[in-house]
């Protein structure tokens, strides 16, 4: 486990896809940072938003809530939101919350942006 801090990389691709890549644990202390970044990006109304969770080893229910909010906001504005590269513990909490079918989840970043 990390110390709970979170950093976020944003890649605005030429094809209009925006990739958000948080790095670190997403819990109640770090979730506001991810939430703010996703809201800022959604305001740009990208055609597709990819959340790359390759560097997120842990997420609690506050992180899941953030993803739910992002998905609901994306659907309202016709942005396609795709999540990729889930680590086991993150996949587990989505499964427990019965949300794994609510999100578009793919295995790799290449699949997500394609």
């Amino acid at each position, binding site marked *: *486990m*990390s*110390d*709970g801090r979170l950093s976020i990389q944003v890649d605005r691709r030429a094809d209009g896809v925006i990739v958000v890549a948080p790095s670190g*644990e997403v*819990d*109640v*202390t770090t979730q506001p940072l991810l939430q703010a970044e996703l809201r800022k990006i959604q305001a740009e109304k990208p055609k597709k938003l990819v959340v790359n969770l390759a560097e997120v080893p*842990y997420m*609690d*229910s*506050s992180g*899941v*809530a*953030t993803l*739910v*909010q992002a998905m*609901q906001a994306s659907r309202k504005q016709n942005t396609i939101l795709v999540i990729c590269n889930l680590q*086991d*513990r993150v996949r*587990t*909490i989505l*499964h*427990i*919350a*019965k*949300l794994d079918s*609510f999100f578009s989840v793919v295995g790799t970043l290449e699949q997500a942006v394609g």
Partner: protein
Amino acid sequence: MESKPQIQLAITSNPLFLSGTREFVYHIASRVGFSEEACGQMALAVDEAICNVIRHGYDRALDKPIWISLQCIGGVAAPETQQTNPTTALQIVIEDEARQVDLSMIKSRNLDEIRPGGLGVHIIQEVMDDVKYEHRSGKGMRLTMVKLRNSAKRAGSGDVDSPGLEGDPTSSSSVSPSPTVKQEMHP
């Protein structure tokens, strides 16, 4: 079950300590023989439980007490021996001095309704083998959770035989896992 904890951690209700508390639970559980998946589940349950105390019990105050106690049911191997650790279950107790809530109000929400928030109680019920909420004498709440070492409970499986918790608290709400998703905790 013995009532005296073998390990106890006292923190204040500052979310900054969540990460360290997760690590504490994860590594103790790992050291007494739980699988990596089970350790992760227990760390998650503790995280969700403490978040609920901070948010709903203490209204996000940062300086209130929370105690996390661990009891290795079945004992632990002496350090000089090479024997398999005898721990059969880990009991995790989380206590606070927050306002006492109506136990019938502690419930999981309907997961068919997709909305953010309200998942903590459901997650705790889903990953632990036994869960009991009760009022502490005087003030505060006590949450007692048990994870079996040979638990058949995997993420989202929702089915396992539970041994139940001992004791006869005057005011408590206990949940044993059932094959279906539990929506409420009954007193």
